């Protein structure tokens, strides 16, 4: 029995058949139940765990259809349109679902109907029903009002005027009902009967293309899974070719015998359809992912989450084409991303900013535009880059004419240093960085960089940068944040970069 705190009293939230046989009911106080049956075993409800369990079940139900939606906290909607024939018809599918759930230790109710509302009612108020299209009204007629997914307050209101079944509402005039009880009862009725549309929101985005294979014998070894990936990718290739597309994000869903579902995904920086390459990416990904195979996987599915136009390119006749090089590089980058994450390999993109930390942004390889216009795939509209980024070549051109010496290494965060200067506005004379004292032999500067008022906070202060060389020949980039201009805030010194 599961208890739940409701209005400062522990009440029964759920109970099993044995407890039901003892005459206990939901909503009853735990104290009352204990008084009747002192030997009751009571467990505190854990909504988070229940949600996780339902999520896990929804994952598992993915094997029947990609469109699985959560229904409240205790139900699942499966849109099985066009899927039933894969399991030998609706009846066989329903039986299979219930059998497998029972084997996992769940007691579940399920029904199939042509509308979500009717299926909801059939699953809760009947057992194993399959409603044909058009039979909803006849089925719902005898059911009580809660079968229309109405709150208890609305139900109580309707019952107080003598409308106790769905059939009574069906026959009652609509306008007065709507005026008195709002539109909800009628909307629910229309949805159940199929007169009004009802949209289910699936938990996971539906893949543009997916290939799956149910296995008679569960597989456990990763090598076998890699082989299966190759096989599925080979199957998917024909469909991708027919569409003229290549996959950019691929997900592998592994359905374990006991119901757990593992998903691993890889991304490609350019659309790909070669099964061998897909297999290689998954090999890298699986090498670093720990997947508990348990008793094995009995269903393996490859989802193409994202696809883009595939452009076949022709190498030049000399055979030393740049295209092949770029393809090699892209595959190498994809393998690194598959293994170490998307941000592992990046390209610098210059921005038009004088602040050194804003002047460069590291863009993941997959998102960076190709180094030169030719060669790479044509980027889709709106994905040419992050806003504010300029193509590297033109920005480099700009920075070349700029002629400002920049450090070759920039510290992620400027590190505060204790510096002393001869004159307040001048270069430092010595400074202490990371607990070591450095004497400045020579200094150049200042290079004054004002904050970007158009998107900086008003507290941002002007910085003066100095190139300094210490007595051992190390060259550093020090900056003083703030000016000696009579404001109460004292300027502070920072180490920001290292020169060659």
């Amino acid at each position: 029995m599961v208890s739940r705190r409701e209005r400062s009293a522990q009440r029964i939230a759920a109970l099993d058949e044995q407890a039901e046989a003892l005459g206990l009911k939901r909503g009853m106080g735990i104290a009352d139940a204990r008084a009747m049956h002192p030997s009751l075993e009571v467990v505190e409800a854990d909504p988070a765990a229940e949600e996780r369990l339902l999520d896990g079940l929804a994952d598992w139900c993915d094997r029947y259809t990609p469109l699985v939606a959560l229904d409240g906290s205790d139900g699942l909607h499966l849109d099985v349109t066009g899927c039933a024939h894969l399991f030998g018809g609706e009846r066989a599918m329903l039986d299979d679902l219930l059998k497998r759930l029972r084997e996992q230790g769940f007691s579940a109710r399920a029904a199939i109907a042509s509308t979500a509302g009717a299926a909801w009612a059939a699953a809760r108020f009947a057992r194993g029903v399959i409603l044909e299209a058009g039979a909803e009204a006849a089925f719902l007629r005898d059911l009580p009002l809660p079968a229309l997914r109405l709150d208890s307050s609305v139900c109580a209101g309707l019952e107080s005027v003598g409308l106790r079944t769905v059939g009574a509402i069906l026959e009652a005039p609509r306008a007065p009902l709507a005026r008195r009880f709002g539109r909800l009862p009628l909307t629910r009725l229309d949805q159940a009967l199929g007169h009004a549309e009802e949209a289910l929101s699936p938990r996971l985005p539906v893949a543009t293309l997916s290939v799956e294979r149910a296995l008679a014998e569960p597989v456990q070894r990763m090598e076998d899974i890699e082989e299966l990936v190759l096989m599925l990718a080979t199957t998917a290739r024909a469909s991708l070719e027919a569409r003229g597309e290549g996959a950019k994000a691929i997900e592998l869903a592994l359905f374990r015998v006991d119901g757990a579902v593992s998903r691993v995904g890889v991304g490609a920086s350019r659309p790909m359809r070669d099964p061998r390459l897909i297999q290689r990416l998954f090999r890298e990904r699986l090498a670093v992912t720990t997947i508990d195979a348990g008793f094995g996987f009995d269903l393996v599915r490859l989802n193409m989450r994202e696809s883009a136009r595939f452009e076949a390119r022709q190498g030049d006749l000399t055979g030393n084409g740049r295209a092949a090089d770029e393809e090699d590089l892209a595959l190498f980058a994809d393998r690194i991303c598959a293994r170490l994450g998307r941000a592992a390999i990046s390209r610098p993109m210059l921005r038009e900013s004088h602040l050194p930390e804003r002047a460069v942004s590291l863009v993941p390889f997959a998102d960076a535009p190709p180094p030169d216009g030719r060669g790479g795939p044509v980027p889709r509209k709106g994905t040419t880059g992050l806003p504010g980024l300029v193509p590297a070549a033109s920005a480099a051109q700009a920075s070349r004419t700029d002629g400002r010496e920049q450090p070759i290494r920039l510290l992620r965060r400027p590190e505060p240093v204790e510096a002393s200067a001869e004159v307040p506005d001048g270069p430092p004379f010595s400074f202490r960085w990371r607990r070591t004292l450095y004497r400045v032999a020579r200094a150049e500067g200042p290079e004054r960089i004002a904050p970007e008022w158009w998107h900086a906070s008003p507290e941002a202060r002007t910085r003066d940068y100095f190139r300094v060389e210490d007595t051992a020949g190390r060259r550093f980039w020090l900056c003083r944040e703030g000016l000696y201009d009579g404001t109460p805030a004292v300027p502070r010194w920072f180490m920001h970069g290292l020169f060659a």
Partner: protein
Amino acid sequence: MATIATARETLFALRRQIARIQGTAAERLEVVPADPPPEEGTVLREGGVALRQGLHAAGLLATGADAFDTALGGGLPRAALTEIHGAEMRNAGAVAGFALGLAALTLSDGLPFLWIATADTHREAGTPHAPGLWFRFGIAPERMLFCETARLDDALWVADEAARLSCVGLVILELRGTARRLDLTATRRLHFRARDAGRPVLLIRHSTLAEATAAPVRLLVSPAAAGLRSTVSGPLVGSIGPPAFCVDLDKSRTGASGRFELEWNAHDRTFRHRRPEDPVALVPLSPDRERLAASARPDLASHAGGRAAAAGGQPAREERPADRRPRRAG
């Protein structure tokens, strides 16, 4: 070809075994790839080391500094693993600068270069800054690829995979501290892959001692005082000119060793030796001498362009309160 390779492997293993029995370091056991037949040109010998002319195309990367190239036997091996060591993390700017100079020498064919580093290296020494690389070494941002990994093993894996790619013009692997995984076997794999791909792999190691590796060349790089900026009216007093490096040749094919002061010339994209007439002291002060020099402040000030002489080693009076305030707060 395969039989030669296996024979070489066997030879290698035997030599290593002999080295172990004799108790000598195994690092000199590098198999020298078959040298190209000596061309008709004359063979110069400088200090007992043969200087072959015209080897630039035959797999050697001349740095442009003659004496340094001579000591290396003509230049750095182009298709090989080269180790560059830095004694301390705070020298990371100079060490990386020297490696980038070599990169700029190598990258003439428009291929990208890949810089692999562990996250802790980046945290300690800073991340590569593309505008600086462009300004000083002329490496365009669109040719840079940076790879940062959380773990050392991942960095080694990426380097292993990258070393065999011929579509990358240069691979830099930057590590910090001791790396047990980077032993003779691992470096030999890197070296062979670099050799097969026909371009260098630079291994930058910070704050660690030299270990036995398969790299044919090991250089210890430390910073050196830069020269003065040259202007139309001669060197500009008190300015910081092109970067200079102090390079110790720790291990090479020729067996030569020595200390060289090199300066990077961004215009010609070559290294050159520091000339004696360069206005800054050639040998940097060692750390213990540094302390002495700090006490003898006027000496230092004179070569620093007389900047600090008047201050007498003390901050100016009006600055003191400002200087103390954060200390009190902290």
